[in-house]
């Protein structure tokens, strides 16, 4: 197999990963649905039980509580003890709950395994593209997208190890799915060499940093959305529905901050500073208000505003998250929008 066909087959491998991601998402969503049912069943069973009698949960539910790690899954444990007033009726629903918890657990493990598999397959696809074209796999929008999706996917694996991150990963996978879907269709560019302007080691770090920061911002954006939903639910006192399964808004707030705080310096270094350095080498000026430069700066300004907002009274929580989402919107625009709508020096996307 020659190099070009390796690169061409990469599209097929990425397409496979795309469908595995769909499986991941379905597994996580069905787990969520089961947990929701479990919660409802628990809620109806615990009415009347005194919290003092809460004993250590048995079997499946203990495992469920442990593996879900959800702040609210303590309630599941609570429901497991025999209610003193109706042992038999409770026994039935305890069976049901045990079954639900077990099933939810199975789905979770399935989703997690699939996520690892999907990430591995995607990594192979990205690597094939890189090997086949004999360069870093971020020379055009197709390659940038699949690599950013890989970064986000790896981030979801790490984030997903914590309780708060589970919900994030479940919904974030959808974004990976959409990104890959776009990458193998609309954004697809057949493999080939780069235009002379991109043949530079600066591509490796300048765009590499952009991919990394973009991946992190993507994960942060999912967290921000969930944070806003969780905070609204908390304000209304709503505990039902899928928002009831979310981590508390303050946990999400901190997680979002950490992800943005990781991405922001990378965005500063890669797209802005090293971009300026490369622009000087390639075009003879370090800052020329090219649309891409303008939008990279706008993104930087909005994320800077986010970091400031989180230190300002009255701007914490969902307001800050909204600022971060605006920032992500501008990041998306500096990636897609600028290539689609404007002409400029960064016309390498392959659209």
């Amino acid at each position, binding site marked *: 197999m020659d190099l070009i066909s390796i690169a061409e087959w990469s599209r097929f491998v990425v397409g496979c990963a795309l469908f595995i991601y769909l499986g991941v998402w379905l597994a996580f969503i069905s787990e969520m649905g089961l947990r929701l049912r479990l919660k409802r069943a628990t809620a109806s069973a615990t009415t009347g039980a005194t919290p003092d009698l809460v004993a250590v949960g048995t079997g499946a539910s203990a495992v469920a509580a442990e593996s879900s790690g959800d702040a609210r899954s303590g309630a599941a444990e609570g429901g497991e003890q025999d209610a003193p007033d109706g042992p038999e009726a409770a026994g039935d629903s305890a069976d049901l709950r045990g079954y639900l918890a077990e099933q939810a657990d199975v789905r979770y493990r399935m989703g997690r395994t699939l996520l690892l598999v999907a990430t591995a397959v995607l990594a192979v696809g990205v690597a094939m593209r890189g090997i086949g074209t004999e360069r870093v796999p971020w020379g055009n929008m197709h390659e940038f997208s699949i690599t950013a999706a890989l970064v986000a996917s790896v981030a979801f694996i790490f984030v997903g190890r914590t309780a708060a991150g589970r919900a994030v990963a479940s919904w974030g996978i959808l974004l990976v799915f959409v990104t890959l879907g776009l990458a193998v269709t609309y954004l697809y560019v*057949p493999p080939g*060499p780069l235009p*002379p302007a991109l043949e530079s080691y600066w591509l490796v770090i300048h765009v590499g940093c952009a991919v990394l920061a973009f991946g992190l911002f993507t994960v942060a954006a999912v967290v921000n959305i969930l944070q806003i939903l969780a905070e609204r639910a908390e304000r209304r006192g709503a505990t039902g529905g899928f928002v009831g399964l979310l981590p508390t808004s303050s946990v999400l707030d901190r997680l979002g901050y950490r992800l943005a705080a990781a991405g922001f*310096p990378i965005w500063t270094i890669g797209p802005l500073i090293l971009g300026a350095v490369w622009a000087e080498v*390639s*075009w*003879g000026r*370090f800052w020329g208000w090219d649309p891409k430069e303008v939008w990279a700066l706008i993104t930087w300004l909005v994320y*800077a505003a986010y970091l400031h907002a989180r230190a300002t*009274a009255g701007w914490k929580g969902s307001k800050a998250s909204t600022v971060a989402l605006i920032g992500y919107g501008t990041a998306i625009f500096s990636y897609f929008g600028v290539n689609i709508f404007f002409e400029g020096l960064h016309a390498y996307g392959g659209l």
Partner: protein
Amino acid sequence: MSGDVTSERSGRRSEGRVEPAAERGRSGARPGDMTWTPEGHVDAEPARTDSDGGADKRPPALSLGEFLRWAWRQFTSMRVALILLFLLAVAAIPGSVIPQSDVDPLAVRDFRARNPGLSEWYDRFSLFDVYSAPWFAAIYLALLVSLVGCILPRSWQHFTAMRAKPPRTPSRLSRMPAYRSFTVDAPSGEVQAAAYAELRGRRFRVADPRDDGSVAAEAGFLRETGNLVFHLSLVVVLLAVALGGLFGYRGTVLVPEGSGFSNSIVQYDNFSSGSLFEATDLPPFSLQVDRFVMEFIDAGSQIGQADNYEATVSFVPEPGAEARTETIRVNEPLNVDGTLIHILNPGYAPAFTIRNADREILAEGPVPFLPQDDNFTSTGVVKVPVADDEGPDLGIEGVFLPTADVGQNGPVSIFPEPRNPQVFLTAFYGDLGLNSGVAQSIYRLDKDGLEQFEDSDGEPFRAALAAGDTVELPDGSGFITFDGYVSWVNLQISRNSGKEIALAGALLAVAGLAASLYVRRRRLWVRAGTDDEGRTVVEVAGLHRSEGGNLDDEVGAVAEGVHRRLSKDQLDEET
């Protein structure tokens, strides 16, 4: 309520926080006071500091001085910084949507031609020059002043805080967010010594052991230092860019293969410079483009895409010096003491020889044509002025096709490399208007004084020439020979002053940013007390003064460390 707690992270005083010292005086709180308030709670009630008592009592009228102070405080507050950041982000948008005259002057000209009415309005708001517009400058200068106004007092505060002793130990350590305790037999003095050593070993700033049997320590000052460094470095970057721009220059010149260029302003096609630039600043070099190679991908899906541009030049650093050969590629400019020579866009220059009816040469040589598409279909004109008494001027309008192919819609170029170079041309005679004193484009004929040649059928004269072909103009007016072609390249010569300082500032800013985001500022206390049985109770507690991470681990590690040191001491004594 301590103001310091709130404003750790982002380098800004939080809104509503009034003059730290005054506030502290009023509320009786100071850093390290026992009443711990989570970050951000302080400024949740900004009104409280102002209303001294009943809410219905109107505050006394402000004097001018007080008003100015109030206004300055507002201006340097976080909220204003937030607004200005947003404003700057929004203000930058039009510059990416509307063509900018210093980015793409041709696009601006086209836009003006198409929308004369709108352009007038755009001009009123400098929308063709957003980034040098007064309103844009107003926003970033306001941001800069707000930033400096915030950072300088904070730097002073930080400086004094670093010199101050860690705060005294709270009376009830168990109320701290991270807390451990254990009992040992060692006397409290030994515990203090062990805690002192342990905390010093962990690079805490530790106050001398106190009478109440406690040790207080503080760490993470680098966070605020980084924060200040970050913001001050941004100022350095902006100043370096702004001042550097005054001395910098940039020019472009089109040089056909085999031709030369010497570095003086008159030789440039385009030249722009900062206001403090002087023509004598130009380094006195000259160069000749010996060879300019264009290579294109000739197979696969990206057929026709450029693969490599490479210029080989004889470079003479100063008049009289020896020429040396240099290569310029894309991404590899020639650097002459900080002046960079880049290759920009290339093209082809077909070479013609134009003779009159007597076969005397009127003009010869390559004429740069401008590429119109990716396959270098290039258009251009040849202007041949002829002395008035010898006949009319000649003007030739032509299309150069590197790889000509006659398709359904007429001749087109199907590949950028010259594999079948042809010229399709027509010719005019009359007055070129070169003496009218009005500047003319060298790529366009001013047809006001020109008549197109017509062939015997009365049709406009047209000819297609391959390299070496000659065509005779109608009525024996002359001869045009297409001799061949050379390539040309646009060279850009530029100097960006201040870039080294800007880069250093930017790198410093990132280092500061990393410190301000990832270093955690925290306080730790260790206290030795006595329990009912007479044993020594060691309490370790920690308090975060900035967001992030879990302090439990560190408090636990310190507790273990102190314990280890104590048992080691004991062992030493026993042996």
